[in-house]
């Protein structure tokens, strides 16, 4: 009987198949490495004119993982798009620390992702300082998750060798048809006039980004854009509570969520990691505009917000108790009603910008500077922090603070009754579409 090991034709066939496959994979990976559409091996700011890299902007998590490898920062700023836009490593308090700083925040960051990127940065180079910006919804017991572009195989940690990450990360991304498509798009779309809004220190430069002519902020005007983001927030706040006529699905048995996988559990991991590694951690709750608070309250999330803050305080108190003699970890809440977060909207129809906000979610760098001033107890003659902006949360201050916030909330509602009513109507309209036609709600929102 003829045998394959004695059959040179069969072996030659096999070798040809493997050689062709290998050549194609290596060729594509080499081409992708040369074009480098995601800026894995070049800083976006250093690639120069004519080397526009559009694919980077929708793959920020990937880009920042490689930026950390390149820059080897010792100060990182973690958070969501609010922090991504609002906090600059060039801020005086951070510059004074005299270490390489990188804004490692990205859009829609979850605490699970923040923890993974923290470990990545620490594996690249031991960190000295971490600034953690949490949004109010991060401090809850819902399971944390990761976004579609989060790729753990790109990230280093303390028990995975760096060379293995080159194989599972770099090579895998390079040997991909998606990357090939991005490379071809990159070569086709040389666009030297497009402003680069990604700062080398990782910040999304709001002044450049929002002022692009094609951006909704410019096309629709600041006020209309602000209201559009309000509507998006209403969508997020009401998404989980959408009514359903569906009967219980008999396919699954409901199981209790794993408390170790909650969003708050990952905050705890970040705290414990920083303690263990001797990293100075400073936490703040981001100062979104009061509209966001009103939308959350109208959606019934106010008790959850208060409980989240209590849980954070408890978490840090437990940490302090476990580490006597060491300084407590700072937690400052900037999210409450204050003279800055209640900034009035520009008149309807005007193209006037707000002083402190791009929209109800994203604050400008001038607020970010004040946040960093407070966090690092820096004082600058040119900047004065309003006394009602940013309250240190501790077991002693939390309840009086929450009570004061309720009073401030009532005052805000008295000051802006029409706006608050319109925001509530938006929430109602989302929950009961038949009861409140969209057009009526929109008109209400525009009337201050």
């Amino acid at each position: 009987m003829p045998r394959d090991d004695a059959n040179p034709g069969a072996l030659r066939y096999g070798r040809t198949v493997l050689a062709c496959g290998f050549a194609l994979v290596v060729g594509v990976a080499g081409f992708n490495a040369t074009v480098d559409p995601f800026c894995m091996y070049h800083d976006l700011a250093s690639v120069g004119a004519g080397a526009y890299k559009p694919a980077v902007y929708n793959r920020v998590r990937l880009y920042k993982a490689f930026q950390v490898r390149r820059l080897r920062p010792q100060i990182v700023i973690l958070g969501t798009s609010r922090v991504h836009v609002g906090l600059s490593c060039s801020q005086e308090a951070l510059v004074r620390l005299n270490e390489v700083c990188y804004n490692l925040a990205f859009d829609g960051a979850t605490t699970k992702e923040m923890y993974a990127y923290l470990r990545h940065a620490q594996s690249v180079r031991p960190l000295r300082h971490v600034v953690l910006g949490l949004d109010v919804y991060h401090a809850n017991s819902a399971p944390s998750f990761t976004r579609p572009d989060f790729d753990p195989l790109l990230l280093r940690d303390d028990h995975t060798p760096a060379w293995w990450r080159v194989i599972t990360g770099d090579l895998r991304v390079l040997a991909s048809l998606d990357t090939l498509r991005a490379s071809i798009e990159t070569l086709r779309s040389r666009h030297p006039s497009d402003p680069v809004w990604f700062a080398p220190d990782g910040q999304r430069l709001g002044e450049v980004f929002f002022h692009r002519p094609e951006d909704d902020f410019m096309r629709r005007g600041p006020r209309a854009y602000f209201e559009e983001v309000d509507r998006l927030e209403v969508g997020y706040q009401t998404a989980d509570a959408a009514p359903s006529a569906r009967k219980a699905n008999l396919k699954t048995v409901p199981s209790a969520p794993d408390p170790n996988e909650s969003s708050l559990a990952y905050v705890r991991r970040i705290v414990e990691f920083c303690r263990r590694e001797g990293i100075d951690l400073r936490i703040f709750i981001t100062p979104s505009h009061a509209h966001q608070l009103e939308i959350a309250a109208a959606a019934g999330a106010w008790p959850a917000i208060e409980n989240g803050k209590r849980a954070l305080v408890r978490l840090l108190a437990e940490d302090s108790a476990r580490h006597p003699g060491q300084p407590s970890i700072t937690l400052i809440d900037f999210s409450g009603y204050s003279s800055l977060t209640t900034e009035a909207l520009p008149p309807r129809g005007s193209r006037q910008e707000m002083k402190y906000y791009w929209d109800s979610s994203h604050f400008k760098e001038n607020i970010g500077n004040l946040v960093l001033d407070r966090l690092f107890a820096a004082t600058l003659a040119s900047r004065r922090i309003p006394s009602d902006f940013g309250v240190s949360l501790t077991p002693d201050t939390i309840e009086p603070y929450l009570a004061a916030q309720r009073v401030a909330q009532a005052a805000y509602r008295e000051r802006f009754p029409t706006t608050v009513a319109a925001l509530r109507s938006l929430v109602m309209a989302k929950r009961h579409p038949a009861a409140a036609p969209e057009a009526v709600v929109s008109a209400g929102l525009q009337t201050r």
Partner: protein
Amino acid sequence: MLFNSYTFILAFLPLSLLIYHGLRRSGFSHVSIFALTVLSLAFYGWWNPIYLLLIVPLILANFCLAHLIVPRQGRSPRGARAWLILGVTGNLAVLGWFKYANFFVDNANALLGSELHLAKIVLPLGISFFTFQKIAFLVDAYRGKIDRLGLLDFSLFVSFFPQLIAGPIVHHSEVLPQFRRRGALPSGYLAMGLTILVIGLCKKVLVADTLALYAAPTFDAAAAGATPGFVAAWSGALAYTVQLYFDFSGYSDMAIGAALLFGIKLPVNFASPYKATSIIDFWRRWHITLSRFLRDYLYVPLGGNRLGRLRRYANLLLTMLLGGIWHGAGWTFVIWGALHGFYLVLNHGWRALRPRLALPATTGSFERRLGQALTFLAVTAGWVIFRAADMEAARAILEGMLGLNGATGPAGAAGARTGLLLAGAMLLVAWLAPNTQELTGYVGPSGSYDAKQPAAAARPEREMRWRPEPRWAAAIGAALGIAILSLSRVSEFLYFQF
């Protein structure tokens, strides 16, 4: 470990081949079987090592039971029947616990208003497949159809990694003789195995995974309570119909190809099912190894067609009902199985009615085309129920397909037209192109217990036929490269307007 993973393609498979063939070339054929068994268990344990504590004791227990059952000098040992009952119920109990316990508890809660709660049970990979293989082995041992019992062969029969996770459901008579063969590979196995493996990988990675992106939004939207319009509903249904076929048949091809690389022929599992001209024909082409298991170990023991027409129809319904629930623990699977049982009864009923209507016994071209269209529509409607999160979601999509939700309903419209076009293009491939065995001439294990296996008789024109020649090697190599380049997706994330 999945076949469509880097770990399998770039590490596990090449390493296993080196070890296996190295041993055989060195004259250690028996050791190579042991090595292949250990490698198969490592393949299984890679997913979750704890489940080796399930599969290994099950292999040992079934082997001991087979030993107690198998006739000696033509006579069954004492208590053989009891051991057989114990073996079959024991295997079904393990399957029942892991696959159906939560389903039963959930239904009990719904019926009784109770709040019983089980700990989270993770379904071990492939348990539905290897449970059937062991049951068939025990039954045949009892019937005296096992000529030789060896622990090593039996262990490899159950755990052989190419067919361990998703079939084909292998009959012992097909592979045990092959395990006992000594020496190097029969000629042509390597080239054909590599080719079929690459075809399967391309089916899975390039077609099925792409179509999944268009099927999921419609089914997810329906699960969330939305009502898909006509276009979205058809797009979702057809995309899933194509996805499922290319996914499952691709995986079967990969299993067959990988097994061939080790010199083992597995049975054919798919034979262009969407070309079927009737539901009876469909089940001879779709998941063939499951169909024949259900036929030989359920339908026939129930009485098959030997006890009159009504009993035959009842047996068909029951067999398909159980076949449905084998696919998953949910009412949608039960209803899908019952629906196919009903289809089969109708089909058999029609065949019985034809002579009374003075219709010819053989069908003409038009009737075959009509039959193919009807069969495809019936199967697609079934897949909607199979895939849907629950019956209300299935109803919403089926209503959408009937146009009851309007042309463009609120849900799942984005990308629906693209999904429809892609699904249509791939259906043309499924209808018009030769299938894997037609292309390659693969016929499954010789001397198979099932003589009705589809052969490669209808091979395409000579130019389209695969041969181990350089131009085919280059084409298959390019396909392998493209499939590997498609394994990793570099996802985008668009948030707000950013």
